[in-house]
């Protein structure tokens, strides 16, 4: 079971969190014209690579905050966690 550092609550076991997928996907701005390709990239297309992966988790049985987690998809090692409003530096 993963051990995730919630930036608000500290180290917590994975069963307090729910997963939210790729954290680097940015929702297009509302009301802005956007190509089919860009929209598909937002809704469907995912890199999902092996290795370091920035992803979202929500501390659903804790502070209910969405957080950003950098985790290795091959080893499951977690390198870093950020609050929702902190920017990922790739």
């Amino acid at each position, binding site marked *: 079971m993963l051990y995730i550092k919630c930036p608000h609550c500290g180290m917590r076991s994975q069963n307090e969190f729910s997963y939210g997928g790729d954290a680097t996907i940015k929702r297009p701005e*509302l009301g802005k014209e956007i190509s089919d390709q860009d929209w598909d990239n937002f809704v469907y297309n995912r890199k999902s690579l092996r290795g370091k992966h920035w992803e979202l988790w929500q501390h659903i049985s804790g502070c209910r905050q969405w957080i950003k987690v950098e985790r290795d998809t091959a080893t499951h090692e977690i390198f870093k966690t950020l609050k929702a409003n902190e920017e990922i530096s790739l």
Partner: protein
Amino acid sequence: MTQSFRLESGGLINRDKKISFKFNGKNYFGYEGDTLASALIANGVHLIGRSFKYHRPRGFFGAGVDEPYAIVQLYRNGETEPNIKATEQELFEGLEAKSVNCWPSVNFDVGAINNFLKIFLPAGFYYKTFMWPKSFWYKIYEPFIRKAAGLGTASIKHDKERYEHKYEYCDLLITGSGPSGLASAYSAAKNGAKVILAEDKSRFGGTLLTSDVNIGNQSGKEWADSIVSELKEMSNVTVKNRSQVFGYYDHNMLVMSERISDHLPETKKYHPKQRLWYIRAKEVLISSGSIERPIVFGNNDTPGVMLSSAAKEYMKVYGVLVGKKPLVFTNNDSGYETAIEFKKNGVDPIILDTRKEPHSEIIEEAKNMNIDIKNSYVVVAAQGYKKVKSADIAKISDDKEELGSVENIKCDCICVSGFWTPTIHLASQSGNKTKFNEEIDAFVPGTSKQNEKTLGAANGIYTLEETLKDSFEKGNQLSKEITNIDNKVSFPNVVEKKSTVHDKFWCVPLPKGKNYKRFLDFQNDVAVSDIEIALKEGYRSIEHVKRYTTLGMATDQGKTSNLNGLQLVSKIENKVVPAVGHTTFRPPYSPVSIGAIVGREVGKHSKPTRKSPMHSWHEKNNAVFVDAGVWLRPRYYKRGDENLFEASKREAKNVRTNVGVCDVTTLGKIDIKGPDAAELLNRVYTNAWLKLPVGKARYGVMLREDGIVMDDGTTTRISEDHYHMTTTTAQAANVLSHLEYYLQLVWPDLNVNVVSTTEQWAGAAIAGPKSREVLKKLFPNSDVTNEGLPFMGYMEGDLFGVKAKIFRISFSGELAYEVNVESDYGYFMWEKIIEVGEEFGIQPYGTEALSTLRIEMGHVAGSELDGRTIPYDNSLEGLISKKKDFIGKRSLSRKAFAAEDRQKIVGVVPLDKKTSIPEGSHLVKDSNAPLPNPKLGYISASCWSVEHDNPFSLAILKDGKNMIGEKLFVMSPLKNKIIPVEIVSSHYVDPKGERVRS
């Protein structure tokens, strides 16, 4: 029965306490502290079972977890369990066990015919035959094979035992209480670290219980006892026996199963049978020791052939002789220790050592005791069928290729030692890449992957002094870094006999003209010849070899066979062992009860049950409940001998004519507050929200980003910056997370807070033409007239002293209200509604009537909003704002979503106005068309329209917009039904929506 193989004295058993038990129907005695295996051996029983494939006789091979043979069916306290290892099962009064995989008896087993057919049953034989005639596989061959396989028998009775879980955190978890475990635990404990020391067996001490060593002027066992009793006294240490750490998972989470009651005749009241520990450890010290590996020779599966370390353990721990005429076959000094132990107990062993001229302290001692030692000798084959009677032995050349002349010597057991294999399972499970240690001819852990360190024999360190030194130091060092305390423990004086190098010999060549089976995997009957065939046929990867031959896939998971298998592959393939590589080690280390993994969440408690505050009222009033997710909701209230159909029709009809009340507590409720609340709603819902006045509610639909409807519900503006959102019961949690996602990540600039209030409010929907009359009685001080509280209006009211929220909203299509009070007053509210409603003919109604009411109104619910439909499909396109953007809007312009002939909700009425239409049926043009018959749509919901008194259904139909008035067929091949129907509007009752506004 006399225990003819029990020594006069010695062992760690309690000879004062006799225990009676039964094996295959026969009564025996053993002592407290015995395992089933030791007690059976003491009684001279060596035939325990039959092997998987050839049904060859099986005895005992080891003395613990590595046992491949001694698998029994256990009977305990009226229950039975399959596949229990006799070497692990502690003896208790009244224990009963039976042999498995044999018929009619272990002594005379019909399946043993396979043993004579074995040349026709090599590795993979089943892939090459049983193919003709085609139908025979499933009907004849497969049932036969299935019956033959399978070891023990599962009882299909429910398990009445209880299993528990425990979550624990510690500084150091130490897995195994041998010398390395005790030393590291002791030094870590002295530094104040929180330590958990886990021992798989019932006794602490590991090899210290059986080895002839001296630590700090005590025997190994005395030293172990003193350390354990000191550790047990320390408040920072948890010492657990019968506890196996079986899995090393991510982020230093380890899981341990503690067998609390398996050694007792029955589980004590309030005690679990087993307890599963999830342990998050800062550091893990793996002190799991090593397992002796066999040397492979002809008929090496004959009962009486066993590991030499096991023979020694039976003598030293259980006071039992595995034989009275033992042969010890070894390639290293360990065999000598076993021989010495035999000799000390008055039995004369013969040692066959594959080495030419080994010299060491231990060997000297054996020589001094006048033990018969034959160097450069091997066992060629064991002789005897159900028990070893003699051994064919021969001299072997220095290059280990040529055998001398074969001689036969009498013996009743052959104790084999092919050196030691470190138990690296946990290290490997942690992700540690193992490395091959040439010196010991086995794999050891490589660089630590997680916070694990491996100590002692598990790390390939086989001298006690080195083990203790390293373990004391590691325990001290790791704990010091955590606690900042450095209480160095002084290193005790260690006396042990020095041994010399082992011979890297593991398989005896076949003598000329002989074709003995030489087994690698004893339970699955995998022999050297099977591996040879696999390689010859091109199954060359070690994984292919394993899968093709089933090597290492038995219940012992290859603990004694895998390494010899690798040796064989590397030899034939002419590769070094590490180049062949081993298969992956995965949890569990040894099999774990599924009951223990699951814990307390069984039966009624397998998932939580949520009940509304009015639940007990419903129960008292004959409600029949239905599961709605984890909620229980009244489906209908049974009167007399009404059935579901009759009751729901009555309830629905009463809503249409009088008034009904329905418990709607389960609806999700979310409180939304903040200056940007309206803006949030405007982005989340498809319709416009910026102009909703205070005191008004609005129906809204929200989409996923892919354009599919996610949920619907009403949201009410309570005050300027305060909204009350309702969701469907099923989507409540998802909608909250959805809102939080957008607020926290996408639009953090919006100043809004959301919180679930589902549990805070109890809700009752009061619906029907007389509902206003009920409201007037409930809230005499409020103006609930059509003007005072118009459709989609909201007000607060005083319900006999309880603050209530009153919403004029309707799911039933009738004039209706929803009243919410704080949950604690829910029951009170409900009783009051029933009380004041009595004069208007109020009746409670359940989900079934609710469903009828919404279906004939054409209101959509879960069966239409099934995660595959867009607003248009549900005739909700009127709610899509053209002016603003919202979540998922961009997806709606996709080709299939915008297609002219897109599916749309319609009503369906049978032409005969009588035949009920089964839900889940499909609509077709031609009921006689050949298959596949093109489907135009499906029936999403059906009811008996109480308004029209005939069946009515909703359907999602292709090009539904242009299909009104068409005649089609409803087909339900599952129910053998073809029903001619007419397509009508989905709004079957009050299409203009006048009632809700009346």
